[in-house]
Structures are given as structure tokens and as C-alpha cells.
């Protein structure tokens, strides 16, 4: 800035300075980019960044591109079209979406209720004991399908449960497999750890003194829960909800193995489109919509959660 302009008002001097500023803006941007690479860790992060782009962003981009290709084609150098999306809305795929979202919602709600007391005990009474944690994680070491078939054998007509009661008491149990409730049971069973551990972490973040202070000021057990424990454990609960909701939304085996095709979830439709139907563009379009749906729900939740705010508290 030249000296005389200083004595005038700001509006007087700005027209003179503008072109000069524009010229240097590019320089500044280039310099800033170079400076960014000179930050500690910037270059070290490059390999991870490349893997992320090649392994995650890339395939995702391919799926989106495929969703815009004509039906039953395997090349993505054709003219983009929205016909797959039209098919989705015309052929009642929304039922599958609705089932997926509904089951994810129900499972997550059941998981919240079941996991709270377990997580509470885990973090407050057993103080996150290693053995107990290991026992709870152990089922994850066995393939999900194998565990689900275990349930099938148990609940099957003339299976372990029905067979036992028939032999011992002559009771005939009603059909338990191949319906919506048993599908939800499978989902709750499989995704329990994903709600339990974040939740117990959330509960262990509630300071003992806050709990005691509330109690000391006359709060009942319920009021301590409502006013202190629940809001302070909320980050953990939210993360648990997010994980289990997204996982159930994308799950396939529970509905197939336990639900026995009585319920068609969207992940099943996607699989069919890619495999039996050999219609990759339709499968991609279904996936893209699912990703969008998940993103809207998750981002909506995260923006309400404000993790930073909750975690940076002292």
C-alpha cells in the first residue's frame, strides 16, 4: 500500500489495489500448496492417501458411473442415462429400501435397550475386565454365516429347541424361522458388539463425581440416569447407533439365512442385480441410492451430535 492512500478512506484506495492483489493471489495459492507439502507429516500421508483414493474413492466412483450406463451393459464409455433410476422407481424396489431402513431402525432401538445395562455393568462393575471383553468379542472370530446357521439348527422344526421339547414334554413349538422377528433377532445378535463397546466407552466417560453430585442433590436413580448419565454417555451411544444402523442397512445374511427370503432387503436386490440378473448398471444404481440414503441419515445424525463439542469437554 502506498503512503498517500492511507490518508484517504478505505473505499478510495481499494480500486487501485484490486488488480495488484489478483495477480498475487495465484502466487499465494501456489506458495500455500507448496507450504502444505512442507508441513510435518504431509508427505508421509501420501501413501495412505493413494491407497484411500485407489481402493475406496476409485471403486465408489466406478459404481456411480456404472449407475448411469444403459441396462445390462458392461462398459462405461457409453452415453450416460438415468434409465436405471427410472426402473428402480417403477418396479417397486422402494419396498426393499423400506424393509432395510425399518429393520435397521428396529434392530438399533432393540440394541440400545439391551446394551445399556450390559454396557453399564461392563464399564462400572467389571471395570472393562479383559476376560469379559474377550468373551464378548469371541463370537466375532467365528464366521457370521456359521453362527447364523447355528441359530437355524436351534430354531428349526425338529431342531435343537423344538426337538428337545417334543422328546421331553411332547410340546410342539410353533414355527420360529423365516419371518421378520427372527431376522431382527439375528441382526441384534450379530451386531451386538458394535453397539456394546462404544456404549460402554460412553458410560465410562461419565465422571463418578457428577453421578454422586446429582445423587447428593436429591436425584433419584431415574433422575441421575436421565439428567447425567444418558446425556454424558451420548457420544458413545451415538457412535454405537451409527455403526449398528449402517451395518444392518447393508447386511444380507440374516435376512437370507434366518429370514429365508420372507423379507427382501435392498442388499439382496443389489446382489441379485449383480449376479443372477447380470445387470451391473441396475445394481450400481441401487447401491448409489443406498449410499445416498445412508449418507443423508448419517450426516443428519452427525450434525446433530457435534462430537467435537462433546468430546472436548473437561
Amino acid at each position, binding site marked *: 500500500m502506498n503512503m498517500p492512500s492511507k490518508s484517504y478512506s478505505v473505499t478510495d484506495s481499494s480500486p487501485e489495489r484490486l488488480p495488484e492483489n489478483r495477480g498475487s493471489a495465484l502466487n499465494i495459492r501456489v506458495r500455500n500448496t507448496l507450504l502444505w507439502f512442507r508441513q510435518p507429516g504431509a508427505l508421509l500421508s501420501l501413501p495412505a492417501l493413494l491407497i484411500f483414493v485407489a481402493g475406496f474413492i476409485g471403486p465408489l466412483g466406478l459404481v456411480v458411473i456404472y449407475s448411469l450406463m444403459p441396462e445390462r451393459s458392461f462398459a462405461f464409455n457409453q452415453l450416460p442415462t438415468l434409465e436405471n433410476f427410472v426402473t428402480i422407481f417403477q418396479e417397486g424396489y422402494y419396498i426393499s429400501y423400506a424393509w432395510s431402513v425399518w429393520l435397521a431402525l428396529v434392530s438399533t432401538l432393540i440394541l440400545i435397550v439391551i446394551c445399556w445395562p450390559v454396557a453399564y455393568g461392563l464399564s462400572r462393575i467389571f471395570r472393562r475386565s479383559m476376560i469379559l471383553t474377550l468373551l464378548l468379542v469371541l463370537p466375532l472370530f467365528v464366521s457370521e454365516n456359521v453362527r447364523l446357521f447355528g441359530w437355524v439348527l436351534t430354531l428349526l422344526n425338529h431342531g435343537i429347541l423344538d426337538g428337545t421339547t417334543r422328546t421331553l414334554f411332547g410340546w410342539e413349538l410353533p414355527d420360529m424361522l423365516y419371518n421378520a422377528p427372527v431376522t431382527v433377532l439375528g441382526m441384534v445378535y450379530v451386531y451386538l458388539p458394535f453397539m456394546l463397546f462404544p456404549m460402554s466407552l460412553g458410560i465410562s466417560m461419565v465422571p463418578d*463425581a457428577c453421578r454422586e453430585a*446429582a*445423587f447428593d*442433590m*436429591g436425584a433419584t436413580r431415574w433422575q441421575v440416569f436421565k439428567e447425567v448419565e444418558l446425556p*454424558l454417555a451420548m457420544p458413545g451411544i451415538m457412535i454405537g447407533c451409527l455403526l449398528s444402523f449402517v451395518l444392518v442397512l447393508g447386511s444380507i445374511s440374516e435376512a437370507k439365512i434366518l429370514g429365508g427370503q420372507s423379507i427382501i432387503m435392498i442388499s439382496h436386490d443389489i446382489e441379485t442385480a449383480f449376479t443372477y440378473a447380470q445387470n451391473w448398471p441396475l445394481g450400481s444404481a441401487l447401491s448409489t441410492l443406498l449410499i445416498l440414503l445412508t449418507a443423508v441419515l448419517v450426516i443428519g445424525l452427525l450434525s446433530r451430535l457435534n462430537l467435537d463439542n*462433546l468430546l472436548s469437554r473437561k
Partner: protein
Amino acid sequence: MTESILELQNVEKYFGDFVAVERINLEVKKGEFFTIVGPSGSGKTTMIRMLVGMDKPSRGDILMSGERVNDVPANRRPTCMVFQSLALFPHKTVGENIEFPLKLRGETKNNRKTRAIQLLEQLHLTEAYYAKKVSECSGGEKQRVALARALAFDPEILFFDEPLSALDYRLRKTLEKELKDIQRQTGKTFVYITHSLEEAMVMSDRISIMRDGRIVQIGTPDEIYNKPANSFVAQFMGEVNQFNVTRQDDARFLDTDTQDTYVGPPDADLQSGVLIVRPERIQILAEGEAADTEIAGTVQNQYVLGSRVQYEVKVTKRSLLVETMIGDAWNVGESVRLGWNSDQAFLLAR
């Protein structure tokens, strides 16, 4: 004689084999500022947890206004505690924190807010704090919010578990006095726990000193300072000069370590014990001045303590601590004559 609001009768608490507190008998009067002082591990935290109802005594009774409250849980006692960590709710604003006990009682929103703002004012915080987050407050402000919340509860007895220990010296001094003022204004009974006798002296009407789960002495600050029950209490206040002595005749004592003789309090019944002289009670004698006990020595070190100066003076086989007002300049290496009168020293059991 004012009525007693809190009474402990032979209270004991064990954790397995460990005796946390033993044979505690004390009485707190209504409207009193009562402080329990003890070093860490003396059982004072166990005491306060039993007093607020978070632990039950293993033996003995706790009476509040004459009624036994041993088995009454904390949420049904008319008492409230300010925690060491303050335990402010991080997810609530300052206002919501203060209103919390009122909300539990189902007070209307308007009443709650009026009371909260009234309390903020009483604790020298502006109305702007009402909507602030707890994390935006400084240490001293959080302290005031915690106190406001406890006052909103309107307890019959207000307990404090060393809430000032994390603050810097100056702020602590300010808050100590504010706390005393608030106690006077509200007329409530305050029971305060601290490890600092100095802090207790400033605020308390009466002080109880604990050691190893037992009460060593209960008395007014004046009694604690001038008539300590034993050398532990005497040392607790700060550095003291102590001599192991045996009585030679009525008021003369022989130092068993150095063979010096001192003039001590004539009325003490003990034949031997510890003779204690506080540093500020020893004078550096000018030419022509005399005292009951006189010792010659050399100034070895000088420490400025603010308004006072502490000298370490080497006498024959030991060194003594002497404190004077700042301005009396004695140089290191200078020869001085120390002296104290017999009523400035006290003889205590070992």
C-alpha cells in the same frame, strides 16, 4: 448454648482390615463453620463420605438434628456437598447447573431462573454467566458456580471436600474470605475438609484435627494455635522449633540433645516432653535487651516470606528458625543473641 445440628457418636469405618476412622466423637453446632483438618490418609475423606451419606459407618451413630441418619442415603439427606473436582455437569450451562437441585424438586422454570440469577449475583458473577458453558468459566468462576448450585439446594449442612485445593494462592485467599462471608450471610452450617490448617484458620469457628483416622484436637483457631494438644498439632501449623527436654526444676528444662537449659512454662505438669517455640516468638535481642532464655548464634540463611523474613540461626549444636517482620535486617554470618520468654514456649507430650 446453640443446638447441635450434627453429632457423631463413636463412629468407626473399616475397609476390610483397614481402619479408616476410629472412635470419632464430635458435635457441630447450628450455624457453625466447622473444619476438619488432616494430612492425606488421615481419614477425612472417609469422614465426609459418611457425613453426606455416600458411605455407611461400620459402627457408631451419625445424628442430624437429633435423628439417626446412618442408613439414610445421600439423596434423602438435607445436606449437600461441594466436591473436590466440583462435579459441575459439563453438558449443562452455568444456569442449568445452578438450577439442577430446583429442577429435581419440580420448581417452575421462571422460579428457577430467578433464584439462579439471584445466586449468581450473591457470588459476584454477572447475569451473563447464566447462559455460559461450564467449560468457558475459569477455575475461580467454576468454584463459585459449584457453590451457587449447592446453595440452590438450600441444605441444612453444606459440606466441602477441599474444593479450593486446585486454585492458585491468591484466588484461594480471596475465595476463603468469600466463603466465610457467605456462611455469615446465610447463617448455614458449613463443614469443610482441608489438609491446610492455614486455610482452616482463616474461615473456621472451630477446627478438628485428624491424624491416622482419629481426632487429635478440637478447638477454636486460637486454641489450636496457642494450646496445641501435642507436637503433631503444633507442627501442622507450620515450621516450629522443638527441643526434647526433661524438667530440671520448676521452670527449667534440660535439652537432652545439647545439654542446654531453657526456661519454660512453669505450670506444665509434664516431667519431660517436647518444648516448642514458634519461629515468630523468638526475638533477636538488641544490645541491652534481655529474655528468660538467651542463646547466642550465627545467622546462617535468610528466607524472605513476604511480609516476614525467616532466619536460620546456628547455635551450638543445632539451628533454630526465627521470623521477624521484614525490614529488620540481619546479615548472613552476623552473630546474634536469640531469646524468648517462658510464656512463649509450650511443653507438650512427645
